[in-house]
C-alpha cells in the first residue's frame, strides 16, 4: 500500500490578512505558517493510522512550494510519513499545482492520494479533483471516513444534510475533512526522526496556469453592533423583522 499525502503551507488561523503591491500580493510580514489544518488533522493522520494498521504501507508527503515550505514539511514528517517530496515551484493556480502532484503520483504508482478538503487560504477545494482527473482515477471528496479491506475502500462523504457511503477499488483520490481522524501532536521521537527523513527536491514539469489573481480586497467593515437591553428581547425581534428584514 503506497499513500501520497498532499501538504500545503498556509498562514496561521489567527494571521492578520493584509495585502501589498497595490493589493496584488498577500502580506507575509509577521505571518506564522502552519500545515493546512485539513491536510494535517485529517489527511495525514488518517494515512498514519492506515500505516499503523499495515506495517508494509509507505507514506510519502508532497508539497508544491518554494524552499520556505520545508519547515512545514518537516513538521508533517514529525507526525509521520516515510519521506517527503518538494516540487520546487511557487504557484497559486490549482491546475499548475495539480499537474505537479499528478506527475509525482504517476511516477510513484500510489494506491491512495489524500488531500485536505481545501486550503484555508485560497479555499479552492480543487486540487484533489484535478489530480484524480489527470490520473484518470475515481475521486471521493469531502470524506469523513475511510476504511480499507484489501483493495476495496469504503468511504463516507458529506452530502447536503447527511452522508453517503461509497465503495471503490483502489487506486483512488480522496479529500478529507472532519471525522476522518483526530488531530495529533508530534512527539519528541517524531520530531527527532523527522530531521533525518529524506526530503527530495524535484524541479517542476512544464504546465500552464489557467488563472491569475488580479487583485485582493477586504470586505467592508461592519457598521457596529446595535445593542438591545436584555429585558427587551421583543425589541430585538422587532428590529430583525422591521429593520434587518431577516425574519
Amino acid at each position, binding site marked *: 500500500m503506497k499513500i501520497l499525502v498532499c501538504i500545503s503551507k498556509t498562514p496561521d488561523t489567527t494571521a492578520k*490578512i493584509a495585502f501589498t503591491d497595490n493589493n496584488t500580493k498577500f502580506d507575509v510580514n509577521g505571518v506564522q505558517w502552519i500545515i493546512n489544518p485539513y491536510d494535517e488533522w485529517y489527511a495525514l493522520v488518517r494515512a498514519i493510522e492506515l500505516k499503523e494498521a499495515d506495517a508494509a504501507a509507505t507514506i510519502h508527503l508532497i508539497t508544491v512550494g518554494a524552499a520556505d515550505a520545508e519547515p512545514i514539511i518537516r513538521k508533517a514528517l514529525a507526525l509521520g510519513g516515510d519521506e517527503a517530496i518538494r516540487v520546487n515551484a511557487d504557484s497559486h493556480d490549482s491546475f499548475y499545482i495539480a499537474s505537479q502532484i499528478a506527475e509525482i503520483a504517476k511516477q510513484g504508482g500510489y494506491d491512495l492520494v489524500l488531500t485536505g478538503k481545501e486550503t484555508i487560504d485560497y479555499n479552492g*477545494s480543487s486540487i484533489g479533483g484535478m489530480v*484524480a482527473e489527470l490520473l484518470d482515477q475515481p475521486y471521493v471528496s469531502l470524506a469523513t471516513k475511510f476504511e480499507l479491506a484489501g483493495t476495496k475502500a*469504503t468511504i463516507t462523504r458529506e452530502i447536503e444534510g447527511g452522508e453517503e457511503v461509497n*465503495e471503490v477499488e483502489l487506486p483512488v483520490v480522496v479529500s478529507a475533512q472532519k471525522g476522518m481522524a483526530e488531530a495529533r501532536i508530534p512527539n519528541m521521537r517524531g520530531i527527532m526522526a523527522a530531521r533525518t527523513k529524506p526530503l527530495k527536491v524535484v524541479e517542476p514539469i512544464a504546465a500552464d496556469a489557467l*488563472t491569475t489573481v488580479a487583485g*485582493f480586497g477586504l470586505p467592508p467593515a461592519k457598521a457596529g453592533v446595535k*445593542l*438591545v437591553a436584555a429585558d427587551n428581547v421583543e425589541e*430585538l425581534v422587532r428590529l430583525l423583522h422591521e429593520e434587518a428584514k431577516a425574519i
Partner: protein
Amino acid sequence: MSVLIFIDTTDGHVKKSSLEVLTYGAKVAEQLGTVAEGVVLGSVTEDLAALGKYGVKKIHQVADDSLNHLDAQLYAKVIAQVAESTGAKVIIFSNNVDGKAIAPRLSVRLKAGLVSGAVALPDTSNARPDDPVGRGFVVKKNVFSGKAFANISVSTDIKIIALSPNAYKTVAGDGTAEVVAFNATVDAAKVKVTNTTKASGEVVLTEAEIVVSAGRGLKGPENWGMVEELAKVLHAATACSRPVADAHWRPHNEHVGQTGFAIAPNLYIAIGISGAIQHLAGVNRSKVIVVINKDAEAPFFKAADYGIVGDAFEIIPKMTEAIRKLKGVA
C-alpha cells in the same frame, strides 16, 4: 456559444443551490449576449421545463440510471460531452458538495480555468465586443476563509465558475425551458453508493436562510432543547462552535468555522459563543449577525449587527416566545 449550467439534483429533486446557479447563469448569459442552457444527469421526478422561469432556455438531460448517484469521474465525462456539443464557453456549478467534486475534473478535461467559491457575477467590462469571453474575464471569490476576497482572472477559452451557496439570490420570472434528451456515452460507474443517510425534515445547514448557533456558553448538551426550539420557530438550521462538536455535545456536521462548515445565511444567531477568529472565519459572510453573550467584552460583538448582553438561558426562551408572537403561532 452558450452558458451551460449544471443542475444538481438529489433523489430526483432539484437542489436549492441549483436554482441559485440557474438565476446566476442566466444573468451571465445576458451579460455576454448569449443563451443559458442547463444540463441534468440521471432521472428527475420534478418538472424540468418549469425551471425556465429562472431564465434557462434549454435543458439537456442524460437520463441514464447509472447517473442517479454521483461518480465525479463519470459526471465530468458526460458534462464535457454536453459542453462540447453546445459550444459552452462558460460552465457554471454550485460550489456545493457535488460541484466541488465535478468542477475541478471538468476543468482538467476541458482545460478550462476554474474559479471556485465565486460570490459575484463575472466582470467582463474589459472584454472586447468581438471576443466577449476571451479576455478580461474576472470573477470575485472568497479567500482566507471569508476574511478577504480575490479577483481571479481566467485566461482560457472556456471558463468554469463554481458559485458559493447563498451568495446569489434566486429570482423567478416567467418562461419554460425546452427539455431535450442528450445522447451521451456513459461508462460504468467506478464509485458504488451503498448507503445514504439524511436527517429528514431538518433544514440543511449549508442551504439555510437562518442559522441558530450555540457554543460552550450553553454549558452542556442537555441544554440544547431551547436552541432547537428557537431554530424551529425560525425554520432555521442549528450549528455550533468547534469545542461543542469536539466534546460531542453536538454532531460534527453542525461545527461551523475555519475547520468546519463555512456558511453564509441571511441571519446568523450566535448564542454563548465568544467569537474567536477561527469561528468567525466560517460565519463572517452571514448577512446579519446577532450575538447573545453574557460578557460585554466578547469579541463576537465586534462582528455583530445586533446584540444582547445577557444570560442565554433567560434570553433564548423569551426570544422564541417573541418570534412566536410575531409569526402569530401559539
